[in-house]
């Protein structure tokens, strides 16, 4: 199979990267925040009511808005029924809100309350940012140590970075707030992303049985897709089981990230590597 203008493939991931960056920048201009954070990372109160029956979220929201200023009510599916998430500021009295909900005739036996003060949320957030940055720097150093060549290493790092930026962009579109669990998923994504990239790079740059570059790439693609698809299969199973919101968020973010990673690895990283190998005459 001969692909004449393989370099054009790179346009797709680049366009998506620019689009995602655009989304994040627009968000920043509008709200002063690069992306939506969950209460863990900005402070607030989250009340989760688990019920067998579905609750009227809009009704609860309207009722609570009368007394408590910023209230946001959402619904999730949980393993044994429905979860209703009520988010409000950390100053609001959670007991009062629960009293209000009980007055509406809602069964509140299975309830969880989480309050994070703004200062603590901020502390978590600054730690989270540092965690991402340090993880990236560490990862970059290790990639350089492994390959000891500039272009392939940069391609691996770029692809991981692009994975994260595009995933964050998609999270905004789908309205997924970044939580500590989501952060963990993003860091995990770095690992998965680098996994396939390292496999691809070492297959292409090291000697092997295949004669042609195309054959090497094709075989790497087969391995890489199997790797990513098994992860996607396992994560889909986890998401469908929906045993807990924390795990569902990890699964959700990772699933998006892995699909994006397929694109970034095989339309960007492989193209850069192929071009690099051709230039250096490594066929």
């Amino acid at each position, binding site marked *: 199979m001969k692909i004449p203008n393989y370099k054009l493939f790179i346009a797709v991931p680049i366009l998506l990267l620019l689009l995602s960056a655009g989304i994040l920048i627009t968000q920043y201009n509008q709200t002063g925040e690069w992306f939506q954070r969950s209460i863990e990372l900005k402070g607030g109160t989250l009340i989760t009511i688990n019920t067998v029956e579905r609750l009227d979220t809009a009704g609860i929201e309207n009722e609570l808005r009368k007394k408590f200023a910023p209230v946001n009510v959402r619904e999730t599916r949980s*393993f*044994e029924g429905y979860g209703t998430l009520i988010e409000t500021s950390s100053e609001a009295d*959670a007991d009062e809100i629960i009293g209000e909900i009980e007055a509406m005739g809602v069964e509140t*036996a*299975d*309830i969880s*309350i*989480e*309050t*994070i*003060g703004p*200062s*603590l949320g901020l*502390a*978590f957030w*600054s*730690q989270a940012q540092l*965690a991402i940055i*340090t*993880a990236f720097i*560490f*990862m970059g*150093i*290790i990639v350089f140590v*492994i390959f000891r060549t500039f272009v392939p290493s940069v391609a691996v790092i770029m692809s991981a970075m692009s994975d994260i930026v595009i995933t964050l962009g998609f999270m905004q579109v789908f309205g997924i707030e970044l939580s*500590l*669990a989501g952060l*963990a998923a993003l*860091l*995990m994504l*770095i*690992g*998965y992303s*680098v*996994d396939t990239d*390292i*496999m691809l790079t070492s297959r292409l740059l*090291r000697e*092997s*049985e*295949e*004669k042609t570059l195309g*054959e090497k790439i094709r*075989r790497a693609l*087969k391995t890489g897709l*199997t*790797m990513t*698809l*098994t*992860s996607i*299969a*396992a*994560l*889909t*199973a986890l998401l469908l*089981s929906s*045993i*807990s919101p*924390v795990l569902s968020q*990890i699964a959700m973010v990772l699933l998006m990230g892995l699909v994006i990673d397929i694109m970034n690895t095989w339309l960007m990283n492989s193209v850069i590597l192929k071009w690099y190998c051709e230039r250096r005459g490594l066929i």
Partner: protein
Amino acid sequence: MLKYWRLWLLLIMVIGAALAIVLKPHYSGVQIAYVYETSPAKGLLEQGMIISQVNGERVYNADQWMGLARDYTGNVTLTVDRKDYRFYVNESGLGIDVMDIETMNLDFGLDIKGGTRIILQPKENASGEMIDQIISTLQTRANIYGLREVRFFPIKSLDGQYFVQIEAAGLGREVVTELLSRQGNFEAKISKPVFLSGGKGNFQLGENTYPVELIGNRTVRLGNLTLETNQTFEMDDIEFEYVNATETGNELFFLGTAYKGEDIELVYSDPQHSGVIPRGQFFSFYFGILVSERGAERFAKITSGVPSQMDLQSGDYYLKDSEIFLYLDERLVSSLRIASTLGGKIYTTPQIEGSRETKEEASKEKLNLQTILRSGALPVSLETVSVGVISPTLGKGFVTSAIYAALFAAVAVIIVVFIRYRKIGVSIPLVFIGLSEIIIILGIAATNDWMVWASVLALNALLIGTAWWKKHEVDVLAWTGALLIPILGMLTWTIDLPAIGGIIAAIGVGVDNMIVIADETLSKSGTERKILYTIKDKIKRAFFIIFGSASTTIAAMVPLMSLGVGLVRGFAITTIIGVLVGILITRPAYARIVEIGTDREKT
């Protein structure tokens, strides 16, 4: 058989880990969660002991215990750790709380078993030492109060701010606000009246007397001091406040501090010095404290020279217009009249009193105050910055659902891998190894497992030693794993939701790596059939890729762990341990399985 020593190694580890998870000294009975002060078993039985029989009848769970022990009076025989204990139970009950024995040696996080997580922040900048002191004071409070299974951790943020995280299985928020986050600054102040005639009087402090004169509307001159209302001053090493003067100008009120927290030498809780009694519609609680000699001297000085007055209802004599006010964190706890016989005397055993609407509330407040006074004050006051109450019902079905989810995911992976290779021999071992990795990770996290892991270490050393002696190949990786993983096995950490996420991450990376191994070794490129590389070379190449990916994953996790974002630390630890188990134990074993498979195909 020694040829397959890497597989034996894996088998030993999996069995060891499984034992570390399930091996327990007891399988039936109930665990003592708390022994009350009033219990006849107090001092004999302790928290954590296992009660296996009640009057010769086996107990299996806490519900059954409730049926047997609630409202029980008379003689009872409890079999605890194979020994019989006999008690006589009066109407106040047996006073022992129990809980079900955990079926596994795993320490599940609050987000799984339910409970309360609270984060407190010092109101002013606190040093690491202060945080240690805060935690030790809080720990003392928790112990005295009888809180079960409460854990305290320091958290440090990037800008050097400290937080204290408290986790407890069943902890109401009121316990935090009323007991833990109170600073506990105790002060006993005594109001001292000075009676004037013609605008002049005497301010008596023990043997010293200072002239007082009203010089303005409310302004007074005391000795050489000029005082406005609510002004504080110090006299004979006692802190005073000039509070006010009466309209008529013939009486002045001062407030002197007699005792502070550091003056408290003992807090009484025995029935002679403390108790709760009904008083009218309310319930009063009282308990005595023993104060230091210096505090008692201050009491004597402040109350000297105060005249007595008869209480018309009871006929007893009290000091006129003089009361003792007890404050905790500037909140008035109780105010008491002072018997005239105590005026000017050294008085070391004042009593603290208060009242509440119900008996329970009164007992609780009494215990709160006793606890705080006994533990002493915190170096700084604390503010609650985060409260999380996690419903325990989330926990009930969790383990079962998690097992279903894991099996579901395993089936999904089997299907994908089978579609790709069309070989059961590749996909089944892959999933089997993935599952054994879960068991090993959980076994490492398990509690009280050092004996199991020490045995595993010994067995592993024996195995690799014999294999080496029998001239089997040198494999530094697997050797490191054989020795390092059992040592890591002695670690214990909490399995919370982030940790489960970590297991998923590690297994995901593991499956990816095994696919690399399978693809490298099973590679038969379409055109070139000539074998350029041996299986060993191919596996070596696969391990280059695996090393790369493992080290980047670990690198991404290390910041999460060391930054102390306490809530996701479990995730980082689990992922790192999982990846290590993978590259050191399970991947070498899988490579061996694939090798065996290809060897068979060739022959």
